[in-house]
C-alpha cells in the first residue's frame, strides 16, 4: 500500500523518504518507583491497534526532523487527530 506523510518542515512527501519510529507512547515514565516490568512494557509493548494510531516518524531523506502524526493502519492513510486525543 502506498503511503504519503506530511513532514512539518518539508510538507507532504512519499512514505519511502521516512523511517518509522514506533507508536507514540507518551512521555517517558517517572523513574521514582518504576518497576522493571513497567519499564519493559513501556519500551517493548505496543497497542498494535487496527485503526487510528499516533506514531513517530523521521524524515530520513529530507530535513532530518522527528515528528508525530496519526495514521489509520487499516487504510494506511494519514488522518486528522481523533477529537478525543486533543
Amino acid at each position, binding site marked *: 500500500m502506498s503511503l504519503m506523510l506530511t513532514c512539518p*518542515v*518539508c510538507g507532504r*512527501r*512519499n512514505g519511502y*523518504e521516512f523511517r518509522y519510529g514506533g507508536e507514540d507512547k507518551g512521555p517517558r515514565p517517572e523513574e521514582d518507583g518504576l518497576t522493571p516490568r513497567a519499564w519493559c512494557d513501556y519500551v517493548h509493548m505496543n497497542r498494535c491497534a487496527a485503526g487510528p494510531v499516533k506514531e513517530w516518524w523521521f*524524515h*530520513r*531523506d*529530507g*530535513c*532530518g*526532523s522527528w515528528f508525530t502524526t496519526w495514521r489509520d493502519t487499516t487504510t494506511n492513510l494519514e488522518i486528522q487527530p481523533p477529537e478525543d486525543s486533543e
Partner: protein
Amino acid sequence: MTENQRQSPVQFSVPALDAEERDRWPVVLEYADEGEGPDLVDLSHLTRWDLQDRDLQQFRPGGVVVPERPGSCAFGNGVLVNRMNRTQASIWHLNPGEPPGPPSESALTDVTEATVFLALFGPGVFSIGEKLTALDLSRPEPKPPFLIQGPFSRVPCQIVVLERSGETDGGLLFTCSRGYAADMVDSVLSAGREFGLRPAGEKAFLRWLSSVFPETE
C-alpha cells in the same frame, strides 16, 4: 612533513583547459568544449559547514543571520546559509577566495570532504530536474533562494534553488554524500544530454553567480 592532496569525488571525462591548485584541491577553472549552457560544475572544493545548536539565531556565519524558517536561505559576503530544520543549518562558502579556515565554534562541523557539491544552471535546468526528482523545484513560491531537502536521482540531497527565470531556466546548487558522486554526475549528465548539458569549470559558475548576486563581482 607530507602534505595530503585533497581530491574531488567528481571526475569529468573532458580535458581541462585551465586549472589551478587551491588549498591542496586541484580546481578546474575551464573545460574544453564548454557549450552555451546548461552547465554542470563541480564545486566540491568550496568549504561547507554544518551548524547545529538549539539556538541558531545567536550565530552569524560570515556575518549572515541564520534564517528563522526551515527551507529559507540567506546570502551575504559570499556565504549561503540554509536553514534545514529546528536545530540545523548548512553553510556554503561560495566565494572562491581564501578558504575560511577551520570553524571556531563547537556547533560547527566542516563537511567539505564528506559531501559532493554541484551547480546546475542555464536554460532548461528545471526540465532536467523534472527527469530526476519528484520534488517541485520550479514551484512559484517561495522566491529563490530556497532550500528543498529530499531525493534527487533517488539520493538524499540538499538542493538550493538559487535562480528561476521563465518556465524552465535558472539554476540550483546541491549536495549529497560523497560516495554518490560518480553515479550522481552520470545520471545528471545523462538526463541533461537532450538539453545540451555539459561539464563546465569554476569560471562559468562565478559568471552565473555574479549574474544572480551582482555584489559578488
